[in-house]
């Protein structure tokens, strides 16, 4: 009765008293017990529903939360052995807002250790398997949340993105993934990866669910000096207004795509045109440069953000760091060290300005820029080891937007020749989440892609 139901649908079931909040919660707990040993989406699972007496946007909705959000009293590891038994004495802003909205924490999901990766394989607690093909990766770093939603071990979940870590696993796992504008959703309590880039966001089975979650977690936070003071909007109702937009098509974002993905992208553009949207050819800076800018800035911030883990106040000693964290810390140290700062870090910051200006120019002409979140569908587990900066390459279409801090969404568009999910990617100007959700919602209504996805879930009995 519940299988594949969205947040909106579950809310309705609870409201009409067809199911109690406790029943909903225990449904997922049972499903997790059954399927998680195979999928390895969760690291920690809660046994009891919480916040059941709160009347809010998420009343009685159980959610999966990535293990880099501090949850008071609930083990939080960021999938790193360094934090093996860390029980935060405080709550992240995102999860405390979810609590206020009445959600119930189902469990904490696996991820690439410290969010360093795009496959969830760098987790110190084993890789998460893609529910569509367990020999493959669900993507990452929010792979645990993506797989949990895709296998319906949660109706929706929270992930975080530095550059692609929501959109890429959403794409590989066949769910909706929204990366908000940097600063739209507070970072307080999220174990930092790239501080100037990190963005919490939802992974869901529908665009409306993404809007509901965004509605619950967005807005200024006095504990995060980088959180935006721009007012939030009523994302859910704005999403349902009938609007038409102009979509920008940049050749730079069509290079190196898998054949099936390229075809699916072309068809999606036609669907938008059929919906009355205009399209316009534009030109943007090559994503190749964003890979470098991202690598330099993210790794410098990683080096810095990992400096606090000395095993004194919490966690294990630094000898517990895995090889990916070490690799990133090493490059971050190199580019910031004496004599190299201007050549690398400062240069990257300047190119970052160029990327921002490039988008600003483009958004004078178009509302969105279309592409795909990843050039290929889910890879086999183990592939990532072959590349020294696999994640950065996998996420090359997400990195420019991440560097600029603009929002983006990953929307399922069916399956490729191997039966693996594919997606399109829309990027919008700063704080244009409501337009992004509006267009995505219309696209969703126009197609039956989510139906295809839910059929996939049904396979995982």
């Amino acid at each position, binding site marked *: 009765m519940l299988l594949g139901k969205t947040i909106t649908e579950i809310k309705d079931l609870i409201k009409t008293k067809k199911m109690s909040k406790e029943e909903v919660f225990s449904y997922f707990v049972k499903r997790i017990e059954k399927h998680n040993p195979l999928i390895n989406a969760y690291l920690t699972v809660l046994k009891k529903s919480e916040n059941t007496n709160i009347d809010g946007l998420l009343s009685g909705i159980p959610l999966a939360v990535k293990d880099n959000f501090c949850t008071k009293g609930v083990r939080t590891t960021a999938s790193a052995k360094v934090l093996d038994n860390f*029980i935060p*004495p405080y709550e992240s802003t995102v999860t405390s807002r979810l609590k206020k909205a009445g959600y119930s924490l189902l469990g904490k999901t696996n991820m690439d250790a410290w969010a360093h990766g795009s496959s969830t394989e760098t987790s110190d607690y084993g890789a998460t398997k893609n529910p569509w093909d367990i020999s493959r990766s669900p993507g990452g770093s929010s792979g645990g949340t993506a797989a949990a939603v895709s296998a319906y071990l949660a109706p929706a979940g929270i992930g975080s993105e530095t550059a692609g870590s929501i959109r890429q696993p959403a794409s590989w796992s066949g769910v909706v993934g929204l990366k908000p504008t940097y600063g739209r959703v507070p970072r307080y309590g999220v174990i930092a990866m790239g501080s100037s880039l990190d963005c919490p966001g939802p992974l869901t089975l529908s665009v409306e669910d993404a809007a509901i979650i965004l509605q619950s977690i967005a807005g200024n936070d006095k504990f995060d000096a980088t959180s935006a003071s721009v007012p939030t909007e009523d994302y859910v109702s704005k999403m349902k207004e009938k609007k038409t937009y102009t979509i920008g098509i940049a050749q730079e974002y069509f290079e190196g795509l898998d054949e099936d993905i390229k075809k699916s992208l072309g068809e999606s553009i036609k669907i938008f045109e059929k919906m009355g949207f205009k399209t316009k050819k534009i030109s943007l800076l090559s994503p190749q440069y964003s890979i*470098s800018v991202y690598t*330099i800035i993210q790794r410098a911030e990683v080096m810095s953000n990992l400096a606090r883990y000395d095993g004194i106040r919490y966690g294990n000693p630094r000898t517990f760091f895995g090889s990916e964290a070490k690799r990133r810390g090493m*490059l971050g140290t190199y580019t910031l060290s004496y004599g190299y700062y201007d050549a690398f870090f400062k240069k990257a910051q*300047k190119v970052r*300005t160029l990327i921002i200006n490039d988008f600003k120019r483009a958004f004078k002409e178009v509302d969105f820029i279309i592409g795909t979140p990843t050039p290929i569908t889910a890879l086999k587990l183990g592939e990532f080891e072959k590349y020294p900066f696999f994640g950065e390459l996998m996420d090359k279409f997400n990195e420019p937007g991440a560097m600029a801090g603009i929002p983006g969404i990953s929307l399922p568009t069916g399956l490729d020749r191997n039966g693996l999910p594919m997606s399109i990617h829309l990027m919008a100007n700063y704080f244009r989440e409501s337009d992004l959700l509006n267009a995505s919602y219309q696209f969703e209504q126009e197609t039956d892609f989510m139906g295809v996805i839910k059929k996939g879930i049904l396979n995982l009995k």
Partner: protein
Amino acid sequence: MATKKLSREAVLHLAKLAGLTLTDAEIEKNSVQLSETIDYIKNLDELDTEGIEPTNSVVDLSNVTFEDGEKNERALTSEEAFSNGKNVKDNAFVVGRIMQ
């Protein structure tokens, strides 16, 4: 064009600064991969950034502060503060004696 791989000494120096201990295999792997990555990121030199201001933060914010003396909503109890400490004694976190 390829930079020759980073020397063992250079890798060890970086590891020391970063507070990381590397196995012999990791030293070798890092010296190769670091060089490869450094070679790649040099593609930024192709872009002219003359007169371009560096971006520290994408948020359009400045002068974000809090008022001195405002209520402390986040104070930790001793129990909370020490809850994850492995070596705690006399209300303090303890490490082996540091030379003075």
